[in-house]
């Protein structure tokens, strides 16, 4: 568990997934990928993805928790899926905007 600041980059301990924090609630936030706490720095330690958290992450997708206070961006995809304290994060629907530049 650690406080998450916007811009922080974390790696999965069990797959190739990497995320960047877009928004996070104050205080300590539990964050797992593949059912295992995510890591600051090293990344994949060779463990296994928990079968309950094995839907995978997709490059460029944004993931949010139920109340929307936690939002992550997948910057490298992997086999594990993201969760906070066991609660699975969902893909945030991107609002389709017209091209402006």
């Amino acid at each position, binding site marked *: 568990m650690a406080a998450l*600041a916007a*811009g922080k980059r974390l790696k999965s301990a069990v797959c190739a997934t990497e995320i*960047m924090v877009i928004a996070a609630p104050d205080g300590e936030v539990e964050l797992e990928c593949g059912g295992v706490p995510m890591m600051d720095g090293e990344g994949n330690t060779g463990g296994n993805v928990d079968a309950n958290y094995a839907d995978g992450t997709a*490059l*460029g997708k944004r993931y949010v928790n139920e109340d929307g206070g936690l939002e992550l961006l997948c910057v490298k995809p992997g086999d594990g899926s993201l969760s906070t304290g066991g609660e699975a994060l969902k893909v945030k629907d991107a609002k389709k905007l017209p091209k402006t530049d």
Partner: protein
Amino acid sequence: MNIMMLLEMAVSGCPERVAFVDPEMDASISYQELFDSAGNIASILGATDVARFAMLDVSNIGIPIGLFASSWAGIPYVPLNYRLTDPEIESLLDRITPAYLVTEPERVAGFHDRKGVQVSSRSDFVALARETEGTPDAWSMDPEDTAVLLFTSGTTGAPKAAVLRQKHLVSYILGSVEFMGADEEEAALVCVPPYHIAGIAAVLSSVYSGRRVVQLANFSAEKWVQLARDEKITTAFVVPTMLSRIVEELAGATNADMPHLQSLSYGGGKMPLSVIQRAMELFPGTDFTNAYGLTETSSTITVLGPDEHRLASASDEEDVQRRLVSVGVPLPGIELEIRDEEGAVQPAGSRGEIHVRGEQVSGEYEGRGSVVDSDGWFPTRDAGFVDGEGFLFIDGRADDVIVRGGENMSPGEIEDALLEHPAVSDAAVVGIPSEEWGEAVVAAIVISDAVTTEELQAWVKDQMRSSRVPERLEFWDELPYNETGKLLRRVVKERLAQLID
């Protein structure tokens, strides 16, 4: 956060895709090559003691390399306006040295002996980027790092350097662009100058959406039309004067014959109603989007989308019709308020200064600090109002207001009244110091048909209070604009004041 992360993601998504093409120089670069080139330059920058990376050049392949390499190396990227005079450029350089400077070949010799400047020509720089083998350190993910310093085209005093941090630019892109949203065949035609915020935004948006960018270094309507057809352009951004010239270039045609052009967005100044109407006729299958934004807000903050363009253009209701000259509604990450001079939030329909708040809003200038208030609101200095449905209309600058005999009036509404006269093709209304009134209402106009001062005064008087009727009209060949289509109101005011003196 770091804009390099956006490029890294694009490389994961489509490494082989062409990222930038410069047809005039016959050069192109793929996403993987752009990433590698940025790394090579970052490693060279890391071995120097330069504090800034300056770019004094037109659009070319070196522009995106310089932008991303600067962020990789952790130093601000500073694009300079190549239209400035030599003394003006010198004084800006004084403010950013020690700097690495990339510029046009013709200019290089002039900077060889300059203290604090390490100069490289465009071609040497691109060759260096593509041919060296660098091993740069990892880029910083600190969201507070400065990504870009942009000298604003302020019309008074020395230019201010707007500070755009990594968090501002990354927030803007994440909030407005869908990752890899572009199909393989999509291509954007970028003709805005690279020292303009729209030029920076175009690079970042295109990279994140995986779209190929075709660069047009020196805009002309003829070249634009030619390139758009040759390169099967699918999306483009223009400033109003550019669209106006494109429409003129296509005069006589009933259709622009560019079925591939899916979207055409515009911004950077006021779009004349006649130009957008004509453009919509010429490009019937094209989605038009009006984007309003400022340097200090990392570009676009409000958008009038394609559906709103079509609705407004097809409507019989005046309120809906006039939305064609609105700048639309705020982006999802932007809050907007109209405030009067005392700071009170104004209801719909009431004119005041536009204030905005959001992650992409900087509002900070180097050496001057931030003008954002403690609640995060940035005063844009632009004036405007929102209608009952939340559509924003820009109405000049907050300090353009004319105070005549104690009565406040906006030049915009008088200009609109003049422009509705069939003989008037352009109009600027300003307040000129007057002993009798404090300020007198005076207009500079451009006409396309014969018309007299008296006729125009009567025309305005039919539509609005008599206090708003210009007491003097000057007939000019053209009004002064800057190169992005902003009316230089201060110049109009000075010239008129001199004439009347």
